[in-house]
């Protein structure tokens, strides 16, 4: 009996988990963290509006210190997501809840942080910390949007091919090109060699993001190898196939780059932000 009851309980727990598995971190628990973040922002704004700080609002008033402490605590906690997500161990914590809170509380930092500045902006370490915080939040917003929209296009771009298959397809075309190009003259052969020699990932970050590859050897070969003879026509067709295959790979690269680029700003700037915050807090009390 006991076993059956336990089993039922376990079944319902599993069901619950399975249900929640399909809820995005943004909608987690009926937007719980959105509401908490809105409440935090609302209370901060209300307090700011009600306190008449003379001669002008600043981070050194008691309310300013309160907002600053909340902001600092939030930033440290938000940055710990990187630690949390690497700890794949059981415990009463859900990575989804943590991510949900990360996103919404991170957004509420715009309000808390801005009010902490008292709208005093200057060329100093304090504003540096503020600007870094805003950049981190902006890239985070981009990240959420990218994660919500891009995976669908990444999947569409794949056309049921894995990344390895895309590379295999290119290799297959390359092998055919190699033999098809045998009858070609020196100039055209050189163009084919250049196309074959070029790494399929050639091109920097900017090429990946924009999808423009001005130094693409395949495109050059395609332009240089005409359809004058049968052999040339075959090479031309193969080069066109190669270009098509490259375009698919580059499409994947572009979407992947758009998905990942924000992290290359988000993470280093977060660490820079923590350094700037340390400098901010120490300098404020060093020159108290």
């Amino acid at each position, binding site marked *: 009996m006991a076993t059956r009851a336990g089993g039922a309980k376990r079944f319902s727990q599993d069901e619950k988990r399975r249900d929640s598995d399909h809820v995005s971190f943004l909608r987690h628990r009926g937007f719980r963290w959105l509401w908490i973040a809105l409440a935090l922002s609302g209370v901060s704004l209300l307090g700011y509006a009600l306190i008449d700080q003379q*001669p002008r609002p600043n981070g050194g008033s008691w309310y300013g210190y309160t907002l600053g402490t909340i902001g600092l605590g939030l930033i440290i906690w938000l940055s710990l997501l990187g630690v949390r997500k690497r700890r794949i161990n059981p415990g009463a914590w859900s990575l989804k809840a943590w991510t949900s809170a990360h996103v919404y509380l991170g957004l509420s930092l715009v309000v808390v942080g801005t009010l902490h500045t008292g709208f005093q902006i200057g060329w100093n370490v304090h504003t540096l910390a503020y600007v870094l915080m805003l950049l981190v939040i902006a890239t985070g917003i981009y990240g959420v949007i990218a994660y919500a929209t891009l995976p669908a296009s990444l999947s569409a771009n794949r056309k049921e091919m894995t990344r390895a298959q895309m590379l295999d*397809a290119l290799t297959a075309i390359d092998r055919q090109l190699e033999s098809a190009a045998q009858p070609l003259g020196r100039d055209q052969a050189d163009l084919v060699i250049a196309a074959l020699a070029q790494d399929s990932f050639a091109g920097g970050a900017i090429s990946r993001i924009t999808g423009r590859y001005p130094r693409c050897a395949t495109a050059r070969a395609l332009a240089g190898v005409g359809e004058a003879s049968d052999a040339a026509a075959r090479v031309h067709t193969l080069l066109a196939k190669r270009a098509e295959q490259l375009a698919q790979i580059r499409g994947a690269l572009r979407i992947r780059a758009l998905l990942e680029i924000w992290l290359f700003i988000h993470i280093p700037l977060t660490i820079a932000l923590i350094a700037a915050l340390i400098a901010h807090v120490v300098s404020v009390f060093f020159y108290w």
Partner: protein
Amino acid sequence: MTFLIRTIDFTAAGREIIRDRVVEQDALTIGRAAENDIHLPDLAVEQRHVRIGRQSDGTLAVNALGTLGFGLDGRTVTHGVIDPRTGGEIALGAARLDIAREGNGNIAITIRQVAADEGKGDARRGFALASVLPSKRAMSWIFAGAIMLVLLMVPVASHLLRTPVKNDPKSDMPGQVLMDAAWSAGELSLKHHKLEDNCESCHVTPFVSVQDETCLTCHEELGDHARKPRLAAGMPPLSTGDALQWQIAETLGKEGPLGCVSCHSEHEGPLRQKPASEAFCSDCHDALDTRLTDTALADAHDFGKEHPQFRPAFYASFGAAKPVRASLDSKPVERSGLKFPHDVHMDARGGAARMALSLPDYGQPLECKDCHTLTADKVSFKEVRMEDACESCHSLVSDRTTGGGFSKLRHGDVKDLAQDLARINSGPRPALAPRRARPGQFAQGGAYAAEFGRPVRSFIGLSNALSQGGICTECHLPTVKQGRPDLMPVNLPDRFLTSGYFSHEAHKKEECTDCHAADTSKAATDLLIPDLKSCRDCHLGATAVKTKTIVPSSCAMCHSYHVPSGQWSSEGKEPHYSPAPGPAKTSIAAILGLAKP
């Protein structure tokens, strides 16, 4: 239909072996089983795996014979079409079948074995953006390190390693700490602008808040509003948030709400200190007596509603050493030691007016400004000097000089007078004729009677001059000092209202007599300072509605926090403290102005 099947193998030494055979069929099968047209001894290949058949349009149909697909140009499919003109590649296990049309129209199938795809995962890594960007970890270290070094370590180190210099407001003191400008939370006030690059002049010790003692290295002349314990006792209770902040701040060494910086908060932009608001003053001075029960100060919170009667400083007894302050409500009697009926002098038809009319220096009846001249600060008046203000009429001429001019008795010191009298060689003026007197006021004893006769020792004696009826007692009170006749010293304060600021300049459209009842004052004992009520004709509190006649007046119009007798103004030309605090420490205003209630 002819298929040319070319198998390329490699010997152990790496030599290539090419075997060709020709199959004349319309379709081919490929698989692991030996009966297939192309036999591939590879466990990854099915027994009968793929069939290649020629179609009517010249293309080749490639179909999987089982459920397992095959690779066609890198893609895994179960059926596909190859156009022999462009060719295609079929992948089956480790074999790659390259299909192309030969020049003679035959279909060539070239079979190669490829090495297992080791390191394919590495190739897949190229899809990640990380392969073309510097690592996040490296960027993080570089950014964070640069910030920590430039914005924290450099200023901290140069602050700790500097040699402290004593502050000197008169010299340009360059800052010694590097990069600490990046710590500044905002521009300094206009007055402190010079210190913009010298943070350590105020922020002397690390982690210790700016101390009053540091402010006073330059602002030593500023007086306290009151003694600190009195200020603390008079303050209203703080709000919970403020109280908590001060509690924490004081534990950490901040000087509390009475420290300089709690009002003079810096880094608020290039501004001037604003005059204190009425609320700032009334925070403490409204119901001050409930907190500071022994205070002599009356409560005040709004000039129009609650403000004590003025208590001018004056000398209440003859020859007193110190002035006293008394409320105008108590009808104070001033004992300056002078006789001076203002009404006689100000009567436009009186003798004084006539006399003035007859004198070229005046030419018209006396006016206030004939005797009273404003000081430069336009607050008080210069000392009235007998020689300048009175002597034109109250002549001290004693003789003719040999050069044709007149000699005078010196004014101011009885000793000088004694010397001058001794030199006088004129006696009583002889009569015009026996039993005939000069007419009217010119007769002996009249106002304009003068003696130009031979000196007569008994008549011109010093005691005569100093005693009742003598020349000195026209204005002065006679007295006896150490057994000798003398005059009562004249005691007139240079300023009557010592704890407030009154600008005569601002009131120059008014007549003097609108406020000072001089024209009806019969005696010098009248204290002609206008009272609170007369000020309120125009001046009401800061919240009053401004009209043509009503001037809303905050406390700061007449009072300032540090120098009660001065006025702070944040607008207009410097100095903003008027009168500037400083050297006049001996004046009455300065002595009494530094209130210690």
